[in-house]
């Protein structure tokens, strides 16, 4: 029943850019898919496992830089870069988070924030990757293998769509199986999880690796879509925060959360940019902020919690009137 809802959402998203053939709108759907996918990845470590990461930009950036450098320096297909980027991100996340997992709660969150900033600074001062100047990806004729399309946005949309579905299904697979139960047990109580025979460190590590690999994949796609990257753009706190905010707004710990959150925040941010131009920079973040405050105060489970509450109330109403 629940999965049917998910397939319905997939189907609706697929027809969007073909119904409204506006380039701007197509751009928004692509950004929506990228950020919804990022939210799905982040949800695995934070929503399911309860380990708040404010540093997912690190893995996003690693994905973007891995494929871009391989293409820029050696002409290797971004598809290969995407896979390698995901592996790198998983490896680095394991090395970085293993010591961080000794920290609990807020301290873990702060550590992830710090790690992401450190990685950003490393890239800023690393000459081999053009430092703070960033890299413009050399323009090539339209080709699937080189993941570049200039005539239409539809191919980008389709790639983003497939990756988004993969990310969502990964999240569903994690949630429905043993691993999902284990991760949620860790979120609810560390001690209880250990007493149930769960190797908490190992499972947190698995969750982090899957989460960062998913994040890196979208980093590659983003780089190929924008065709320019610099450390501030891909490693910035902006990216980390956007992922956090949209998932929290939609509903933490549910596969629907990031989809709902991205569907609200991405159009908001893109349209304010279109209508307000340079002067409006940051307005979307102000609205984000206000929304988050409202959500945190009234419904910590996000928009999804709001749905569930009204549904429950409706059911109760039906019961009392029947």
């Amino acid at each position: 029943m629940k999965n049917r809802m998910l397939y319905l959402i997939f189907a609706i998203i697929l027809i969007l850019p073909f119904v409204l053939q506006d380039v701007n709108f197509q751009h928004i759907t692509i950004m929506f898919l990228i950020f919804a996918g990022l939210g799905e990845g982040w949800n695995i470590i934070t929503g399911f496992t309860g380990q708040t990461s404010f540093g997912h930009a690190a893995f996003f950036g690693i994905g973007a830089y891995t494929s871009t450098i391989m293409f820029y320096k050696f002409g290797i297909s971004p598809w290969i870069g995407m896979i390698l980027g995901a592996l790198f991100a998983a490896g680095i996340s394991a090395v970085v988070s293993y010591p961080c997992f000794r920290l609990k709660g807020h301290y873990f969150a702060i550590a992830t924030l710090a790690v992401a900033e450190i990685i950003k600074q490393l890239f800023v001062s690393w000459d081999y990757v053009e430092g703070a100047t960033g890299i413009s990806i050399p323009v090539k004729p339209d080709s699937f293998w080189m993941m570049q399309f200039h005539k239409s946005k539809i191919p980008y949309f389709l790639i983003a769509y497939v990756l988004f579905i993969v990310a969502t299904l990964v999240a569903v697979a994690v949630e429905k199986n043993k691993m999902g139960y284990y991760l949620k047990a860790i979120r609810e109580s560390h001690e209880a999880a250990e007493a149930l025979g769960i190797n908490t460190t190992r499972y947190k590590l698995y969750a982090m690796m899957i989460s960062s690999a998913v994040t890196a994949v979208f980093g590659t796609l983003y780089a190929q879509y924008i065709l320019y990257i610099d450390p501030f753009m891909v490693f910035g706190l902006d990216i980390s925060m956007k992922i956090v905010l949209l998932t929290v707004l939609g509903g933490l710990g549910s596969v629907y959360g990031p989809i709902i959150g991205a569907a609200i925040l991405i159009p908001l941010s893109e349209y304010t940019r279109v209508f307000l131009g340079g002067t409006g920079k940051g307005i979307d973040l102000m609205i984000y902020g206000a929304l988050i405050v409202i959500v945190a105060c009234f419904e910590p489970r996000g928009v999804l919690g709001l749905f569930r509450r009204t549904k429950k109330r409706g059911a109760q109403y039906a019961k009392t009137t029947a």
Partner: protein
Amino acid sequence: MPRPLLEVQNLTMKFGSLVANDDVSFVVNEGEIVSLIGPNGAGKTTLFNCISGFYKPFSGKVIFDGKDITGKSTHQITSMGLTRTFQIVKPLKDMTVKENVLTGAFLHANSKREAENLTDQVLRMTHLWDKKDMLAGSLTIADKKRLEVARMLATKPKMIMLDEAMAGLNKTEIKEAMELCVNLNKNGMTLLIVEHVMEAIMPISNRVVVLNAGRKIAEGSPQQIINNEEVIKAYLGERYYAKSRQINGGI
């Protein structure tokens, strides 16, 4: 000849200069119900934490099923078949009762189906079947304690340790908990129970170990313990002494 399942040898645990457990040794044999009693602050929960791997003992050894488990992590100890409940219950609040138990059942199940079958079995045995779809956070304290036991049983343990599983329960609930313990024991389960509710554990225990201020002051059958002068002075109190005399006199 009974086979020792859990052996605690000269276990000492210190927090700074505070000695919580001082050279404690005892044995739990296979198929026994042993209870651990003592006044508040005697070091019962600390001892539990040392045995179950939450604390690493300062010195001494813990041997379970012939293997040294001193300093092993909790999840390893649980996998070997020794598991515990918590004095302050730790339900997985945002998960349903069924999901709570299922999480434990995955430990020795090869598939989700197998884990689900085991979960159903455990839920029926612990009388939680009717509440299986409720969120664990919304249960009453008695049911939360029952859930602790159910979740633990789902890990298919050889021996379980209950940390004040009956505190805060009413008479009927205590009786149900006692029955559950006895039934488990009949099916071959070994139990180590920390409890303050004397009326509940004295009748079902094979042996009783008494701690006071970190030291073991007595060990023996419930009969021996309730007549032990030192135990009465330290813990049971004159009233229990008089009451037990009455009961014994009646018999």
